[in-house]
């Protein structure tokens, strides 16, 4: 398998830039996930790697070779599309062997490759069916099979699970993880579903408005986001954000008053990036990090809804015009109108007024 690199890659449609300079390295056998909201450019970036969209500026290298102007079929990539893109008039067997046929491979070689891919994906009994005779999950497996038979250097997946129902999506997610382990493949995977990104990726690339917001392992992004966008995007339920104002700056600490909670104060230890006194900041805290009242800075919130999921409970609560989600391990919260929680300062993250993380 082969590595891939993007250096200052840009894409514009006329005067309108959609990819604003992406630098990225994908190591051999790495499972990289591009994630971001709709319109952030993740699919465009994948299509540029595939050769389906031209690169306006910058360099794309696959296996150390410049690929900017190379035909898609000669880049050593295979792509799995969101809509499966199976040829409707061909059987599963013909769909999977189509690329090899056009590459001039002998018939017995094509049959061998197709049968091998069918074995891996358990498609054997379906080989003579037409795509219209398959379920969504089966079609997706055929689309993956079509990619596998080409033995590409890099697999590209463009939101491959989006058209599947929730249960099948979980099943296929596990299948993909197994496949990655079995094939030892380099995979670039696009999704807007951060759960898919967290569960599948070795490395996540969070994109926003055509730019890379942050690159890191799933847990790095979860625990140590660089900015407010990544903090809010990664994690389900989302991170809670509380508005604050810096009321005092000491040696390696900043005292923050939570402006919507009666000026409740907490002191946050920080490193080099200290805010200025009077600066507006945002305090981020994940739902599971709230402590029981009395253990630090306490807030009392009005309970709106409690979701009992069996193993855990999510409490949706309001306070000072801010809606917060609190995770509790109790199976039953009981009938309660208010909840008192504490914010452990070591778990809380601080962001400046531009949304940049203060560490």
């Amino acid at each position, binding site marked *: 398998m082969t590595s891939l690199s993007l250096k200052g890659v840009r894409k514009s449609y006329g005067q309108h830039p959609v990819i604003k300079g992406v630098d990225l390295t994908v190591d051999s056998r790495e499972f990289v996930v591009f994630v971001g909201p709709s319109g952030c450019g993740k699919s465009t970036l994948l*299509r540029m790697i*595939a*050769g*389906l969209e031209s690169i306006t500026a910058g360099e794309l290298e696959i296996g150390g070779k410049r690929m900017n102007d190379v*035909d*898609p*079929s*000669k880049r050593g*990539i*295979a*792509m799995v*599309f*969101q*809509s499966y*893109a*199976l*040829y*409707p*008039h061909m059987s599963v067997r013909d769909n999977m062997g*189509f*690329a090899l046929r*056009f*590459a001039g491979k002998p018939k017995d070689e094509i049959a061998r490759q197709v049968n091998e891919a069918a074995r891996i994906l358990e498609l054997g009994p379906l080989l003579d069916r037409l795509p*219209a005779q398959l379920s969504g999950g089966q079609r997706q497996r055929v689309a993956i099979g*079509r990619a596998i038979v080409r033995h590409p250097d890099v697999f590209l997946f463009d939101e491959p699970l989006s058209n599947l129902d929730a249960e099948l999506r979980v099943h296929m997610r596990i299948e993909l993880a197994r496949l990655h382990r079995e094939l030892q493949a380099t995979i670039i995977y696009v999704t807007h579903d951060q759960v898919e990104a967290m569960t599948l990726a070795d490395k996540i690339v969070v994109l926003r408005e055509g730019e890379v917001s942050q690159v890191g392992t799933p847990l790095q992004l979860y625990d140590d986001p660089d900015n407010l966008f990544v903090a809010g995007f990664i994690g389900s339920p989302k991170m809670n954000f509380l508005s604050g104002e810096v009321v005092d700056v000491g040696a390696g600490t900043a005292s923050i008053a939570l402006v919507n909670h009666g000026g409740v104060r907490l002191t946050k230890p920080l490193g080099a990036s200290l805010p200025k006194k009077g600066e507006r900041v945002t305090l981020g805290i994940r739902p599971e990090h709230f402590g029981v009242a009395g253990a630090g800075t306490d807030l009392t919130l009005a309970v709106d809804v409690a979701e009992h999921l069996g193993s855990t409970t999510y409490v949706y609560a309001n306070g000072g015009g801010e809606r917060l989600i609190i995770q509790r391990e109790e199976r039953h919260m009981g009938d309660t109108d208010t909840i008192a929680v504490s914010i452990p300062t070591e778990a809380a993250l601080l962001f400046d007024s531009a949304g940049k993380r203060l560490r």
Partner: protein
Amino acid sequence: MSLALVRRGGVYVFLSIATFLSVFPFYWMAVGATNQSPDIVRGKLGLGSNLLVNFQHLMTQVDLPRVFGNSFFIAVVSTLLTLIVSSLAGYGFEMFRSRIRERIFQLLLLLLSIPFAALMVPLFVMISRAQLNNTFTAVILPGIASIFIVFYFRQATKAFPRELRDAARVDGLKEWQIFLFVYMPTMRSTYAAATIIVFMNAWNNYLWPLIVLQTPDNKTITLVISTLTAAYTPDYGVILLATVLATAPTLVIFFVLQRQFVQGMLGAVK
């Protein structure tokens, strides 16, 4: 009686009238082909026993195999060329982005509004200058880039999944291979519907062949039927028999491709 029942009854009456109006001319034509001319003029609507006699008369007046051969050749070649040229154009208009694409397409649609009568004379002058007068090429050539069929294919191509083209590009197909091996088989309902439309138009074409085909050897069935009606005492039995024979191929094509025709008109990509 409920309002729904009255409504449904009204629909049935309307559909029955519409069916009668559609089917009766065919019935009259078919029955007329079996009757003598005086019976037809008198308005006889039952089957007659004059079919073989009408057929013999038709065969003595017209070289049927040649005339049918001419019509078939023109209709089949026209259909093939029109489908290839117009579907390529429709595919191109929809698949390739260009700043002037819509302008050119609008111009083409504007040309649809020019009646053929206005084009007839300049077209004849062009054909004559190209020394194609009295040839099948003269009949076929002006019709193969049909704006209506280009428009029809462009609209149908909007339903063609772009990801199929992308997948084919990744699979190593050139554009012409994508058109041939992916687009054409996927759009077969559209092709079937277009086949019926183009074949019928070419088969029934009268005015342009009348202008450019002069010798009897080159005449098509529609031209021959018109010469039968021009006789001093027209034999309506013979004329209607010729009309039945002329209608048969288009009916056969329609019934063979009927299912795909409906799908194609609905814009379905299966």
